[in-house]
């Protein structure tokens, strides 16, 4: 059975965690930067996605730090999370390439540069 593709928000969260473990606010900032300001995660959405990703074994809690008297929980991507992210990135890349070829954008861009 085909595996369900990741939602855009989940994809961005995994991408944000691929570089280094992050805490909640760090993930919100990173996804905002990765999406060029298009995706602002709601806090409820972020923690719902983290709950699902933890349950699926794609993300796990890394450590807790105390920052200005408040606890910050860091999350990190697991090996299976990294494999899933790579597979999803390749799938999205193939689809994007196909769409650009079909619409002629890639060919026109090639002609312009020549």
């Amino acid at each position: 059975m085909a595996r369900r593709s990741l939602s855009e928000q989940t994809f961005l969260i995994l991408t944000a965690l691929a570089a280094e473990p992050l805490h909640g606010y760090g993930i919100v900032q990173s996804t905002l930067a990765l999406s060029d300001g298009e995706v602002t995660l709601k806090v409820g959405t972020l923690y719902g996605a983290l709950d699902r990703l933890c349950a699926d074994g794609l993300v796990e809690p890394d450590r807790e730090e105390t920052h200005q008297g408040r606890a910050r929980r860091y999350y990190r991507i697991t090996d299976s999370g990294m494999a899933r992210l790579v597979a999803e990135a390749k799938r999205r890349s193939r689809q994007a390439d196909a769409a650009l070829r079909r619409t002629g954008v890639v060919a026109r861009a090639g002609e312009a540069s020549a």
Partner: protein
Amino acid sequence: MSYRRLLRVLPTWYQERYADEMVEVHRATGARVGPGEVAATLRLAVSTRLGRAGRPSTTTLWFVALAAVTALAAGAALSTVSALQVRLDDAGRGWQMDPSGRLRETGSGWDAYELLASVGLYRVAWIVVLLLLLCGSRRAALVLGLVTAALDLSAGLGPLLSRDSAFLEVALARSDVRAALLPVLALGALALVGREAPAPAARRRAAVSAATVVALYAAGPLSAVSGAMLVWGDGTLWPTTAVAVALAAVFVILAARCLDPAWAATVFVLALTAVLAGPLPGTPDRTGGPDGIAGNVLLALAAAALAALAWVASTGRRAPAHLAGESSRRRVAAG
């Protein structure tokens, strides 16, 4: 509305674990509590209560399969006993015409093969499926259950596929389709259980099966309670209603505090199945008239509502298994 107040819709275990962190993140983003945040938090409240973001736990799947197969096995056992009684009653009434043209009593009214054939051999196999589940053999139970259900379904669909289907009563065809819901539910639950997932303890498996038998036994008298029996001497319903509501509240509180959420989830699934499929095998079929149908549907809906309440309340108190060991992870004080 403050964000911390909004977080009160989340389960208790979730608030204890994440509320401070979520408030911190929300404060850092500098956003106001708008409709989008309210909707996201409400979605989170639902998904955390349904467990693993909406997916049933392995224990729930095992319980649903056990309860459904117990109901099927109970139905098969009752059919067999009933057929056996009829044959025993008729045992001495076998008659044969002798060469002189007189009727002669033979006393051989039945045999074992004829008895099993009349009940349906495939239905008796549900008892074996139940025994396999009680022993913890999920795969063997699934294989035998699939064969049994296939035979059951083909027997039900036989008239539909034959040339005489034009004469088939619509009510009978509908009844066959509804009867397939319980096997589909049992086998679907078994198939969804992960191959590596451990079975619940033998004692819990036996308890679910026993509880199902008790519930099926109790369903008979309960479904016989009509509206007229609830009316008191002065013609009012409220004293009975008050007692029923109080008993229901006690059930929900006890279930939420004492039982695994999987129990309430199982009752919820089975009650909804009873609404769709009619009386479960083993329970008295009182669908003869509109009153009977309405009574059964109301009973199943009430059970579903109570179980849903108990389920929501109980899942709010317990952290899911994948977070159970998190407290042992390392803490770093960064100042």
